[in-house]
């Protein structure tokens, strides 16, 4: 089968696409195909990978115009792909190359981040946004002698967000991130919400305030592309919706803020 791959390196006047043909083997993933191409056809092809088991988040890229992990994506489903995730449109989804969907898989770098080379993007902006929300546990003190006692259902709610692998697929899928350079994006906000609902926090229920601005929770337009592309089943759009309704309630009853302090 054929792979139409985005190519760019520093000094090039602009990007172009190369087409490679790879013999399909059962169970082949896009990552395995890229590895075969790099090792056997074009050693200069650059991409990131590590775990090859969909747990580390290194290999997020745009495959057939859907941000996803290359290691988790089986190639057999990609020709004339029928069950492709439907996404709200944004510029990177526009087709700018003569892509024949009946014979080719289209592989491009993750949108909304600068391309360093081929499929490798600079994740700095993504991680900088993460650090702006102060993604650190603020413990309620004094520490208990042993572990904090936490109810099982609270753990279930936390897991909904701690499962994030910070691959950036949601960031590359978000129409708001395509045009708002101040929006931290779905992963950062979901991480903030994870701390917000942690019952062990010093000020549980208040960390939501950290993104109470026009470029924070309120910038989201609920396209829900983030939730649809997340390879780990995380639901940033749900976190954002809950954060907004909690903030509304707080503002309706301002006393609550001081009460919880």
């Amino acid at each position, binding site marked *: 089968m054929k792979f139409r791959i985005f190519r760019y*390196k*520093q000094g090039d006047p602009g990007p172009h696409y190369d087409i490679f043909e790879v013999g399909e083997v059962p*169970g082949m993933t896009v990552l395995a195909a890229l590895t075969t191409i*790099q*090792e*056997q056809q074009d*050693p*200069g*092809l*650059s991409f*990131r*990978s*590590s*775990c*090859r*088991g*969909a*747990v*580390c*988040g*290194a290999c997020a890229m745009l495959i057939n115009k859907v941000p996803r992990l290359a290691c*988790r994506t*089986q190639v057999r489903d990609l020709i004339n792909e029928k069950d492709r995730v439907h996404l709200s449109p944004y510029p990177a989804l526009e087709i700018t190359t003569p892509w024949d969907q009946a014979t080719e898989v289209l592989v491009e770098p993750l949108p909304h981040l600068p391309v*360093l*080379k*081929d499929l*490798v993007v600079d*994740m700095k902006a993504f991680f900088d946004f993460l*650090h702006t929300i*102060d*993604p*650190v*546990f603020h*413990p309620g003190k004094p*520490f208990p002698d*042993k*572990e*904090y*006692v*936490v*109810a*099982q259902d609270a*753990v279930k709610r*936390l*897991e909904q967000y*701690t*499962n994030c*692998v*910070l691959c950036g697929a949601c960031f590359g899928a978000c129409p708001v991130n395509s045009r708002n350079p101040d929006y931290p994006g779905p992963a950062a906000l979901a991480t903030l919400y994870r*701390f917000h609902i*942690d019952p*062990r926090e010093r000020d549980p229920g208040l960390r939501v305030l950290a993104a109470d601005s026009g470029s924070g929770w309120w910038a989201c337009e609920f396209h829900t592309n983030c939730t649809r592309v997340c390879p780990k089943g995380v639901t940033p759009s749900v976190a954002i919706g809950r954060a907004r309704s909690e903030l509304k309630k707080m503002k309706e009853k301002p006393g609550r803020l001081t009460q919880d302090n």
Partner: protein
Amino acid sequence: MAVQPETSHSVAGSPDMYRHELVIIGGGLAGLRAAYDAVSAGTDVAVISKVHPLRSHSVAAQGGINAALGNADTTTHDSWESHAFDTVKGSDYLADQDAVARMCREAPSAVIELEHMGTVFSRDETGRIAQRPFGGAGYPRTCYAADRTGHNLLHTLYQQVSAKGVRFYEEYFVTSLVTSGGSCTGCTALCIPDGRIAGFLAKATLLATGGFGRIYERSTNALINTGDGLHLALEVSVPLKDMEFVQFHPTSLYGTNILITEGARGEGAVLLNKDGERFMKNYAPGAVELAPRDVVARAIETEIREGRGSPGGYVHLDLTSLGEPLINDRLPGIRQITLDFAGIDPVTSPVPVQPGQHYSMGGVDVDISGRTRLPGLYAAGECACVSVHGANRLGGNSLLDTLVFGKITAGTIIGDLQHIEPGKLSVIRNAVLKETSRIKGLSGNEPGEDIYQIRDALKKTMMDNFGVYRDGPSMETGLIEILALKDRLRQARVPRMQAEFNLPLVHFLEITGMVNIAETVARCAIARKESRGSHARRDFPVRDDEHFLHHSIAVQAGDGSINLLASPVNLGMFPVKERAY
């Protein structure tokens, strides 16, 4: 002391020169746990990693971390002594018992510390950290976060050390350790994004580079687990220890060899051969599926060799009796993996599994404080060998090793820094020049040997001759093949291309180390004429305490040859006994 005050870690006038008190090579759990304590003590810490730290293989650890918290106790009580006994017995009595005692005593606080940093562990009905049974353990002692324990721990530590101001050098591949006056004074590294060689001056250097599983054809390890730190140590004649002891996990997914956690068996999954027989009762009547990994891996291998496996070489791990709610609650990642990578739903169908390389018990020889034999150089985690795992590691003890010895080694370094004089910048500068020219010399346009063919041949040789079962003649053949591959690699060249993200160059450097490491595995395995833990020889099927109750030490001499020595095992707490389950 440096006279000139430093406003940043960069050295004036030298864009690719950096200085830090402590340089940690590797951003997984051991490296970040050490970084946490060091930076908290006011040490200036840098972490160099060939990938973003969150892509380190620690993130893939599934089943859990052992600590005698006693949360699952009913009528009897767990203790650190029980944990230590299980660990020593699991190691086939090759672990150093003083080190095991220390690790098991500090296990509860190691887990609680991470919980207090924010790690979300699974809970029991009372809200305490949940604990599940694991192989070779006398109590349900394994604390877990569903089947994503490593992920939760690594993300927590990454958040903490980022907030504390540890400096990360991401996508830097360390190419050499720099020594001067009998000490390690830093390292050189290839900056993968721009292809330049950078120099790092450090009072202390900590190797935390993880295991070398990728020298095997079938491995649960991440693609990045190429044992880089062990190669760096070999090159400066720092000894490696117990390299013959390579763990095969009994249940890697047939086809991709992605890990299926021991936690599945801990929760009640059973192993079935092609006749549907629960064969483990024939090998370990007491512990059955929860015997230690070496025992279960050998049982599966035997079933397959004797024709009771399925075509292609696998058996089935049957989780169907666990029920959908429990699988979704405690093993959600496993369900996702089997669906994604094998198209199988474990709720309704048994999962095809086979043994796959999983862990390196051996590593850089360190003492109980984390010091190597080279002043200024330390090691912790899977790349180190204290030894707490001996000839076979128990499931749930590797995450524990990273946290406990990451912390212990940080403490050692913080103390040592008081009296280490900084090395000379000029020595690092010269090393950068030397490495720049060496690495330039690796590129060429003339057609030579293909590095990927050499790597694949190495993986096959290791799998065929140094796998679950071994014997003398086949290992001798394997060693000859490894040495031939080493020769072929000298004829190989990296194609000339752009400097940025030059993957063939990184792979070349990795494969050079892999071949070297493979040779030490081979030589140690050939020399150990007994069967102990993971080292199972058909020609010497019995443990021989009289001649082999010692650690193997492998040192690379100046001419590149490997010399073997022995060092004693620290016994004392538990008498050496026959090991049965």
